[in-house]
């Protein structure tokens, strides 16, 4: 038997861990500035990050076969919880997302970010790829049911990410290009339908996305001010703690969804390049793990989780830079917040599990 590396014995992927720690560190530094030097907030966030990392390392210990077996159950539990949330959920910020479990508050939609791709990867890896049409149709049901439940809360950002995660599995599984085109056309046709199902605040966001100057004091305010913050930062940035936009407290949600604007303002284009390199490194590592996975389930899930991670980054940055509508997606591992970080870290734990539980043929 070949000598196992330290990483394999501990089930830790060190390159991935390095990238994650680098991101979290940057996040804390920016949070300190964005929160107007509230060291207590930074401290609490650091604790959350550490807890999330512990969860990641615990998940990494699970054999991928066990993870695969749990997929169906997690998915079903998730769906039940989502339905429960619609009836018994706590209302926060105009949306019903939270389930009060007495001990802690839980967002079932976060669970779906993991269990949807797990379920689909589990289902598709059962038979040979690429999947036939009827299987694809069933997969679409697997995606649409939770997405609709989450969109109804309403939490458009999470719905989008859950849908993306499911779709990513389908794409990686080799769905034909022709079918892909057909789905795209169908989606375009469904757009008006979606429009009418949207809440007023969501419609406003889309409208002001097209022209933020329409409503500079209301819905367009976020985008306009974050663009000013980014643009005034320049190539080198204004320097840490020197962002006048954020320190004058007029950049909204500057420690959560719009933390990227604070980062841009203070560290400039140069900082953005560095940050993107770190993200790219993590994504590259994730895709490397996917390609080198030993089982189809692992390949599908690893690539889907990695691509979802990227979609997070892209949607957030696109939103903050004024290219995408404001949908409320945090910048992964940098934005302040607890629940999404736990989900992300658990996802990375799955990646590590896939990579480190390799079977070696003994000669």
């Amino acid at each position, binding site marked *: 038997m070949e000598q196992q590396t330290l990483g394999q014995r501990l089930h830790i992927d060190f390159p991935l861990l390095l990238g994650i720690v680098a991101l979290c560190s940057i996040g804390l530094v920016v949070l300190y500035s964005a929160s107007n030097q509230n060291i207590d907030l930074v401290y609490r966030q650091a604790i959350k990050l550490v807890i999330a990392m512990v969860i990641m390392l615990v998940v990494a210990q699970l054999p991928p076969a066990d993870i695969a077996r749990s997929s169906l159950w997690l998915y079903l539990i998730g769906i039940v919880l989502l339905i429960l949330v619609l009836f018994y959920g706590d209302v926060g910020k105009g949306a019903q997302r939270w389930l009060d479990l007495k001990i802690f508050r839980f967002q079932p939609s976060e669970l779906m970010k993991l269990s949807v791709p797990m379920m689909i990867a589990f289902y598709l890896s059962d038979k040979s790829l690429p999947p036939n049409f009827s299987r694809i149709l069933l997969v679409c049901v697997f995606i649409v049911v939770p997405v609709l439940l989450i969109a109804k809360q309403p939490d458009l950002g999470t719905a989008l990410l859950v849908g993306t995660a499911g779709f990513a599995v389908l794409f*990686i599984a080799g769905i034909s290009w022709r079918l892909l085109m057909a789905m795209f056309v169908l989606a375009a046709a469904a757009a008006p339908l979606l429009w009418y199902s949207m809440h007023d605040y969501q419609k406003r966001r889309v409208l002001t996305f097209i022209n933020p100057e329409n409503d500079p004091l209301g819905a367009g305010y976020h985008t306009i001010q974050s663009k000013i913050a980014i643009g005034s930062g320049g190539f080198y940035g204004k320097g840490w703690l020197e962002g006048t936009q954020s320190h004058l407290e007029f950049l909204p949600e500057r420690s959560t969804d719009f933390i990227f604007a604070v980062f*841009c303002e203070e560290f400039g284009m140069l900082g*953005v390049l560095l940050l993107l390199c770190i993200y790219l490194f993590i994504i590259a590592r994730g895709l490397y793990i996917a390609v080198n996975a030993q089982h189809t389930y692992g390949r599908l899930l690893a690539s889907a989780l990695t691509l979802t991670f990227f979609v997070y980054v892209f949607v957030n940055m696109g939103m903050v830079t004024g290219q995408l509508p404001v949908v409320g997606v945090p910048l992964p591992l940098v934005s302040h917040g607890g629940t999404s970080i736990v989900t992300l870290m658990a996802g990375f734990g799955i990646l590590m599990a896939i990579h480190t539980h390799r079977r070696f043929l003994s000669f």
Partner: protein
Amino acid sequence: MAREFKLKDNEHEALLIARRVYFSAAIVILLILMIVSRVFYLTVIQHDHFTTLAKSNRVKITAVPPIRGLIYSRDGVVLAENKPSFSLQVIPEQINDIDAVIEELRQLIVIEDEDIKRFKQAIKKQRRFENVPLRFNLNEEEVAIFSVNRHRFPGIEVIAGLNRFYPYRDELVHAIGYVARLDEDDFQRLDQSNYRGTTHVGKLGIEKAYESVLHGEVGYQQVEVNAQGRLIRVLERSAPKPGENLHLTIDVKLQKTAIDALAGRKGAIVAMDPNNGDVLAFVSTPGYDPNKFVNGIDNKSYQSLLASKDKPLINRVTQGKYPPGSTIKPFMGLIGMENGIRTFENESWCPGWYSLKGHEHRYRDWKKQGHGYTDLHKAITQSCDVYFYILAYELGIDRIHAGMSRFGFGQPSAIDISGESKGLLPSRDWKRQALGQPWYPGETLIMGIGQGYALSTPIQLAKATATLANKGKVVTPRLVASTSNVMTEEKQTIPAKPEKQIKINNETYWDDIIGSMRDVVHGPGGTAWRSGLNAPYEFAGKTGTAQVIGIAQDEEYNKDEIAEEFQDHALFIAFAPVENPTIAIAIIVENGGGGSKTAAPIARKMLDQYMLRPEMVSKG
């Protein structure tokens, strides 16, 4: 076989997945490049545009201090108002070299070293990117000069605000007090969140006592300001709740009459309504101009106020301590009857002096030849000293102390402004504690005519007079009658403090004393008869003359030989009408000589002003 097939299948799938992953990776890189180019576009190409926007389009939240409530007199005259004023304010973060900029500013506008000192201290305490005041009360010329040169001073601005103004200046300062700039001590004492943005706080008098009512509640506004910190527009506003207006019990016309009647002499006058304690006039002269204190009085002016021998800073009404003199006699008479020492008709022999048995010292009567046989009526109307020496001696200090306490002597009047003195009502205990000496009988004698240790404040004397006029009903003097809400114009009456009733054995004693006091003014031989001449209404009074310096046994008091500051204080207490009185007055004229000559005519002028008003005449 099956295993082999599966392996093959796996290989095929791995290839398929790898291809899709590579394709995805290409998309990822494409999208990241899109982000990069977007950030590049914003930070490099559009940098100048957004820098301008950032500098010219800053939004911040500022506190909006509430507008302080106004103070009105009983007759609706404004006694404290808010006048627009201009101050020079600085945002330190927007200035590179503050000292240089201040030097440059000094070429245009007077900025004292004190201003700079205070400004530098304020910078340390201020939050970042907020205004710090450098100069207050710019005059119009200074505002104009700065406005012309404004472009030279980014980060500095003239800000319009409201300044407290007291139109009656020194005439009401002791009642109303004043506001002045908040200092660190005030900030510790007050609710800081509610005083965010507030610059002034009540420091004295009604302004201090009713601070919480006058101040109101802070509001907030979201404003857009440009890079210089100048306000462009208000985006959102939660309005402050303005302070409530106060309606005083003071009657400006009566106040004015009292001040005029004092004719520039030092003294104190209190007039109050015995029915409810409303203070109608509150005069303490000399006063000073409270407007000078609002934005900080300069040290020189303050020192001269402090050093002045007229002591204008002293509130003579509540803090001035004077021997009550003969004004104490009606109270003494009542206590004598109440304790069964004398009936109203019992007579004492007054040869013009009195000595204690076995002592040589002669306690003199003001009337050298004496009053002869004197009953209480005569003792009050003619202010016979010997009668009260004997009465006091027979009562003893303990009973005098107990009796006088019932009228509020030696205790604060509980008027609704702070800083009140409680005067001094001597007792055996007090003397032992304060001076370490036993009480001597001789001291009891002079206590009977309100001399010696006894000291009372004018407000105490007025309250006691009102109690007498009320036949024992004790009311607490107050300056504020009601508050009104600026927004709803709803008036709210401040409830009067609960009344007390002094119980005596025989209610006719009140009539005896009050009748005697009426005859002080209207009776034959009354000490204030001159002031009662031709009065179309009846009033009761008692004169008093308080010695400032002791006079040796065989010396004569000769006004012309004594320096003014050692001349006697003139006192007069009065109330009108005799039945169901509506006004009670206490007057003290410092170094004014005799009470009948100086103080009583002032009361007559005030009573004429008050009693002869059409509404009072019709009521009477």
